[in-house]
């Protein structure tokens, strides 16, 4: 045997020789295996090209014009000058109350959404309810709630409870119900099944399994997500007043429309500071809840 001289066994060598002899035929019969790198290259060049062309097409469709951009930038420059110095001009108290209202809307909206989504999320989790129709239905319900923007929800709730912050809180609750449902059910599905099995083995009922096997595992994750959404909802709640659903957005719209830019700048600064403070508090709380290693 000459296996010592070549590492390839005679069988494999025979295969290789036949393959090399039939190279043209193979190329013809399996074009995919040979053309892959060329296709990849074409993809790498073609995709950005298509994206750029699409962008230019979009600009043409949407009436972009350099003249308008130039004039607009000029006007923005004027605005920036008019914004300095930011000053409340005697409305500091009114702004503070509106900001408080904004925080209240965000807080209540997030909390309501979380409380409503928590039980429904179990229905959408495959490892709790194996029935495909139930969790498919629950998932699609969440999708529908999620895909309607907060401002659209606000417009609809205004029809029911009238103008004001209550409609805003309900709008945030609805939009976040969908988002929470999705995230919570994913968190539930990612749990370790051993704890549940252990409880089942010691004679626990289905309810016991959920209460003592699942809930302790998902609660920290859920708490962290709720805090994170509270942060982002403070931002959403600042704009919900644009359609008349309470909070600081009403002032913002009015002041921008009448070009009271000093007050606008002051109000935006107030919002930025509030958001920064809330972010700070909530990230501290999140760290306390789940520990720094698992920060999302």
């Amino acid at each position, binding site marked *: 045997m000459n296996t010592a001289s070549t590492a390839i066994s005679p069988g494999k060598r025979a295969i290789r020789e036949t393959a090399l002899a039939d190279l043209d035929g193979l190329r013809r019969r399996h074009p995919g295996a040979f053309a892959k790198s060329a296709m990849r290259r074409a993809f790498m060049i073609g995709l950005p090209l298509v*994206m750029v062309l*699409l*962008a230019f097409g*979009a600009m043409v*469709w*949407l*009436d*972009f014009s350099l003249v*308008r*951009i130039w*004039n*607009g*930038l000029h*006007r*923005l420059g004027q*605005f920036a000058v008019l914004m300095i110095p930011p000053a409340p001009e005697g409305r500091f108290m009114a702004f503070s109350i509106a900001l*408080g*209202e904004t*925080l*209240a*809307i965000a*807080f*209540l909206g997030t*909390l309501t959404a979380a409380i409503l989504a928590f039980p429904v999320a179990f229905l959408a989790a495959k490892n709790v309810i194996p029935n495909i129709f139930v969790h498919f239905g629950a998932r699609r319900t969440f*999708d*529908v709630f999620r*895909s*309607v*923007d907060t*401002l*659209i929800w606000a*417009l*609809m*709730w205004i*029809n*029911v*409870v*009238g103008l004001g*912050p*209550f409609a*805003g*809180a*309900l709008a945030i609750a609805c939009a976040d119900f969908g988002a929470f449902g999705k995230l919570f059910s994913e968190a539930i599905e990612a749990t370790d099944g051993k704890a549940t099995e252990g409880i089942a083995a010691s004679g626990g009922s289905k309810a016991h399994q959920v209460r003592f096997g699942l809930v302790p595992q998902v609660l920290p994750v859920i708490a962290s997500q709720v805090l994170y959404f509270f942060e982002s909802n403070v*931002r*959403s709640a*600042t*704009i919900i007043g*644009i*359609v008349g659903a*309470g909070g600081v957005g009403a002032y*913002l*719209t009015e002041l*921008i*429309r009448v*070009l009271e830019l000093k007050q606008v700048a002051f109000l*935006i600064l107030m*919002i*930025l500071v509030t*958001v*920064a403070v809330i972010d700070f508090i909530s990230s501290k709380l999140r760290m306390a809840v789940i520990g720094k290693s698992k920060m999302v």
Partner: protein
Amino acid sequence: MATAIAKLPDHQAAALSRAYASSVAAKRMKTLAVLVVLAVLIFISGQMADIRPWKLITNIGNFGSFIGRTLPTLTFGNFFADMKAWYWNFGDWFQLLVETILIAYLGTFIGGILAFCLCFFASANLVRNKTTRFVARRFLEFCRTVPDIVFALIFVIAFGLGPMAGVLALTIHTVGALGKLFAEVVENIDMKPVEGLQATGASWLQTVRFGVLPQVSSGFASYALLRFEINVRGAGVMGFVGAGGIGQEFLIAIRNFYYTDVSAILLMIITTVILIDLGTEQVRHRLIGMERMR
């Protein structure tokens, strides 16, 4: 097989059960404290936000009848004519929907490019200069903290009504949001290729191109797609302030009580958003798969 369980003598068992009871009690106290704090916060915010649960309960019927009135009358026998009556303005709405998607696309595209250029300056592992990093980070933070619709309000006055203001507003918000995520991706890379390139005397730009870019490109693409999804939703409401897209038409329909138009437009928005969600999810899964294979 029967196994005898050893039973502790009573005095020992009592001590252990006392310890257990006290630890459970401590935990319950903590939970109770959290609940009390929550209740106080709920009460205060309820007062501030002018929450009237009774009004909701008495008016919840309105919501039902509102939804009921938005539903079109579709009969089986006359289905196509009914659909046509419901979607009487389909051509215009479809055009506005395309406009909405294009606003989102352009905002994501331009914003993504700018975020790409900025993110390297905001990452601690590539830029040693603290001032540069600080300035880049605060700039990104400003861009994402001011809501896009506020930018749209200002831009509508500066650039005039129309989709251009919407695109620019989304662009600025996207720069802020993507810049931060991109910078985080860059900070999590493996530094060995970068060090190798630096050892061969490569310039900063070459280091980024050959050391960083191959590691981050799929992560960047994935985040950009996620942002596109969010921007489609955002572009849908840009019309509320006159910044283009389908929002304007929706606002008119809901303010003037054109009930069936509301449901028609809403259904179009929801379908589009869900389709785009599903599409980008597929692509993102592939991107992540590519990442794993490498």
